[in-house]
Every structure is written in C-alpha cells, then in structure tokens.
C-alpha cells in the first residue's frame, strides 16, 4: 500500500524547484516503537508535523485465537481468553462464561454473580488506573503517574492472586459459576483496597486534572461526535466521553447489575481530556458498586452443580453475549454443534473496533497527538490482533 501521493514534479527536476511545493513525509510508527502499546503499527503521512493520513496496520500479535478455540474444549479456551486483553482477564472470562451459559442455558448461583460483579469492578478499577499512567507516559510524563498507578493496581492484583492464584492470567470463572470460593479474609482485604482507592483518586486528580500542560495536550484533541462513534461501533468510555449514555451494565443489565445503584458519567466533547475524566469518574462509581457488593455478598455455592467441568457439550445452537469490559463492549459469539468443541468461536474485540475511527481522530492533529489519541483509546494488542 503506497501512501505517498504521486510526485508533483516531473522526473529529473529538482525536488524543491517550486518553493511552494513541499514533500509529504511517510513515517512508519511501529511495530517497534516506544508508545504504540505493543506491536502495533501506523503508517502516517505527515505534512511537517501534521498528520495527513494514518493507516493502522494490524496482525503482529496475531495467533488465530479463534481457530485455537475451535480446536479445543469449551473449558480449555478459558485460560486463553485471559490473554486477549491481558489487563482484564476476569472480564474476558466473564464475557466468555456468560455466552456459554446463554448457549447452554445454565443458571449461575447468586454468590457467584456477586463475585463476578466484584471481580469485574476491581478489574475495571485496575485497568483504568494503569490507563492513566500509560496515557501520561504517552504525553511524556516519564512514568511517575504510571508508577503510582502500578502501586495502586498491585493492591488489586494481590487480591486477584489471593483468590485465583495468578495476578493477571486469572482463569477464574467457570461455566455456571466460579472456580473456587473466597479464601478466608479475602472480603476484608478487598474492603481495605476499596477504602484506599478514593485517596489515590484524589491524588491523581490533584496531579492531573488542573495540570496546564495536560489540559493543553488533551483538550480538543481526537474528539468525534457521538453519532459517528456509534456508527463505527465504538463503545465503552470513548462513547460515554462523547456524551452518549451507553453502558451495557445499564443497557443489558447482565448478571445482577440491576441490583446496584450507580451512575454513568458522561462527557461533552469526547476529546482525550473527557476520556481521561470519564475513566476517573467511572472508577468512583465502580467503588460504589464494590461497596454495596461486598456488603451484600450472600452465602451459598459458587458454582451451579449441573455444570460439567469435563466433556461439556452444550446443545446445538448459537449465542452472542456481550459485557461492558473496561475497554468497551466485549462480545463472544459461539455456535455449538453438540460436540465438545465450539463450531464457531468469535471474539468481538473492543480494542480493534474502537480503532476504526483512529484515522478520523488523528488527521489534522500533530504527530505527538497521535500517540495521545491512541493512548486514550486504550488498546491492548493481545485483543486487537488475537
């Protein structure tokens, strides 16, 4: 794919014979680049520092996750879903488990539903926490915010490790419930983490929201009107930053989200600053959910006894399930032909589809803004390329 336009001068003449004519610069950003969030590549066409065209190039981390899943049992795909968006393994687990439960018509015990909500909200917290750090890193703030975020996130990861055995690759949910019950003292520890979060958020707000450089770098950058975002399938905080109240926790009310009272923060412009602030505000709402979920956590079994671990064969049919992952709408589409493997296994990756409008957001901005816009979309290449 040749991005450069045809040379405006005939061959053999001096390149700058016409003083008004300058050459566009084609710059390949990535796949090895400090701030493309992994092995992502963008072919940018620059006029000076201004972006004229920008084409994302995918696939450097492609491993055909879907084909792998179609060749192994339903259960065996669960640990692989951890590796899609490796920051949010538990929400990936949930989306997959939710779809399989739809496919097989499995009920989930109440305690397991509560655990899922708690873990999903903790996942959202830690994802948004490191998002702040990475975004600031993309702006060149040299890792301070990233480290504060990591410190806070570590507390959440400690909880994950104590419960699931792994900090990031949790592999915790099972069809019809959760793998194991909480270890003793976990709920109290989770309560401590939740209580420590507002202080952290206050500190971040003090550090970030009034910072003039940050405001100058983020305001009015990358905004696209909500209607176009919807048409392009963009979901999650990006859509809400543009002022559209669309949160699957409220729209679909999957799981037991209808039992919690929480609000959806909405932005106006949909620019990078709004995306940042929406995530900060969303974290506070997640804390409210966690607060009541930890309080109301009922006793009982954590897994539906009818759910089979081995030789699981859902009835023939298909199901599409989606949840509000921290990155956006994460969907799974499964077709069963009653064999132990799914006939079709499809992941609807929010990270990939949120990139649909990347060029539109970046054209006319400066090259440095491209990184900030990309950072504000919050992609994970494990999910983009699958």
């Amino acid at each position, binding site marked *: 794919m040749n991005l450069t336009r045809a040379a405006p001068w005939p061959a053999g003449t001096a390149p700058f014979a016409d003083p008004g004519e300058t050459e566009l610069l084609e710059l390949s950003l990535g796949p090895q680049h400090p701030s493309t969030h992994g092995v992502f590549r963008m072919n940018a066409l620059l006029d000076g520092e201004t972006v004229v065209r920008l084409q994302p190039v995918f696939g450097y981390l492609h491993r055909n996750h879907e084909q792998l899943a179609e060749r192994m049992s339903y259960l065996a795909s669960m640990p692989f879903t951890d590796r899609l968006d490796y920051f949010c393994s538990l929400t990936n687990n949930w989306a997959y488990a939710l779809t399989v439960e739809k496919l097989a018509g499995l009920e989930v015990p109440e305690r397991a539903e509560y655990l899922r909500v708690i873990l999903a909200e903790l996942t959202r917290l830690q994802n948004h926490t490191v998002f702040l750090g990475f975004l600031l890193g993309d702006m060149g703030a040299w890792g301070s915010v990233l480290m504060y975020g990591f410190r806070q996130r570590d507390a959440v990861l400690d909880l994950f490790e104590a419960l699931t055995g792994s900090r990031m690759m949790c592999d915790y949910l099972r069809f019809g419930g959760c793998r194991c019950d909480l270890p003793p003292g976990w709920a109290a520890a989770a309560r401590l983490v939740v209580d420590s979060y507002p202080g952290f958020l206050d500190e971040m707000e003090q550090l970030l929201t009034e910072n003039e450089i940050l405001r100058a770098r983020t305001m009015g950058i990358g905004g696209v009107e909500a209607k176009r975002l919807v*048409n*392009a*399938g963009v979901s999650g905080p990006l859509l809400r930053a543009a002022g559209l109240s669309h949160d699957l926790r409220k729209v679909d009310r999957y799981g037991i989200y209808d039992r919690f009272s929480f609000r959806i923060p909405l932005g106006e412009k949909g620019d990078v600053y709004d995306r940042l602030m929406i995530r900060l505000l969303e974290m506070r709402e997640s804390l409210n959910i966690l607060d009541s979920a930890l309080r109301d956590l009922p006793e009982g079994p954590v897994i539906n006894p009818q759910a089979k671990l081995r030789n699981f064969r859902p009835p023939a049919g298909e199901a599409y399930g*989606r949840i509000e992952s921290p990155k956006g709408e994460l969907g799974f589409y499964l077709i069963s032909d009653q064999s132990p493997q799914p006939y079709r296994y499809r992941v609807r990756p929010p990270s990939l589809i949120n990139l*649909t409008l990347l060029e539109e957001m970046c054209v006319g901005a400066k090259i440095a803004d491209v990184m900030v816009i990309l950072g504000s979309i919050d992609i994970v290449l494990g999910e983009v390329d699958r």
Partner: protein
Amino acid sequence: MTDPDRLLSLLEAGLPGSAGRVRRWTNPGPSGQDALLVDPDAALEVALFLRDHPELQLDYCSNVTGVDWLPREVTESVTTTETVGGETKEVTKKVTRTEPGYLEAVYHLYSVALRHGPVILRLRAAGREAPAPLPSLTPVWRSAEFQEREIFDLYGISFSGHPDLRRLLLWDEFEGHPMRKDYVAPDEDGLPAIETAAAKGEANR
C-alpha cells in the same frame, strides 16, 4: 422489538417484495437468538431499512463474523411410489445426499438509541469457492470495516462495495484462509511432530 416475525412484517411493509428475500432462521439452542436470513442481493437495502426505520433504529453493528459451513452428508428417508412388476407400492428409502457447503457472514445489530437487540442478519455466499462474493455493509455501519476485512482475510469472503478490502491480520502474501474448517497449516519448520495428545488429535475429546 427484536422478534423476527415483527421485523419481517415491518420489512414487508417498508420494503415490498422483501418477503421472499428475507426469511427467518430459528436458533435451536436455549439462547433464543433467532436470525434473519437475508438474500445477498437485498442485504444493503434491508440493512439501510433496519438502520433508519424510526421504530427499529438499529444504529449499532456490534459484531460481524464469518462462519464456514462445510458440505455435509444428510441422510433422509424418502418415500416414493414405485411400480415393480405392475404392482404399485410405497417404498421408503434412506437417501444420502450432500448438502453443499457455504460461507456465511453474520451481523449482530443493536440499537443504542432504543436499547434493543440483537437483530441478527445472516448473509450466505453461494459457495465456498475463493471469491465468495457478498455485499459489504460497511457503507451502512462503519464498524463493519475492520471486521469485514478480517472475514476477507480469514474466510475469503470478498465483500463488494467495501472501501478498502485488504487482509487485516495476515500479510498480503499469505495464501489460504486459515479460519476455514478445512484449512491445514503448512508445516513450516519441518520438525518431527511431538507426540502429545494435542498433536495426535486426541486432545479434549
């Protein structure tokens, strides 16, 4: 709002003559997500109608994916009347015939404005041969852009009307479409296969 029968009647009212070209596809599973089987020729028209109808407003195309249906052998009992030696009688035979395979593109539509869904569209290509043309719905929903490219890449359905139909995940020189059910990965390193259960094809059965 997403009951397929209701959708069909709306379609018939809004797009006369669509009855023959849009059919209902029933999901046998417990999820109850039935689909509309849309004739490829009518797909663009139907998609625009679904998006813009004030009662539907399916403005959000959540998921687009391909499915590869291999040719399958169907065994049916067929009853015919035969005349054997002047005697006419009904004979029931078991007939095995091969249903041709086809590639399918599945669209999951939602309405952000009205909060309903999913409405599922299924577009079936004529066969499994290489170009396997289907109309692209990217002009209707931009979110299909990358996903249709991915289907083109991994299944080999070529979407006519797509603004930029290239491989998405694999490189341009790649041969074959790896998500097809009959795809066999070339043996690149030539190393002897490791005798694990997975390699022997016994895994997870």
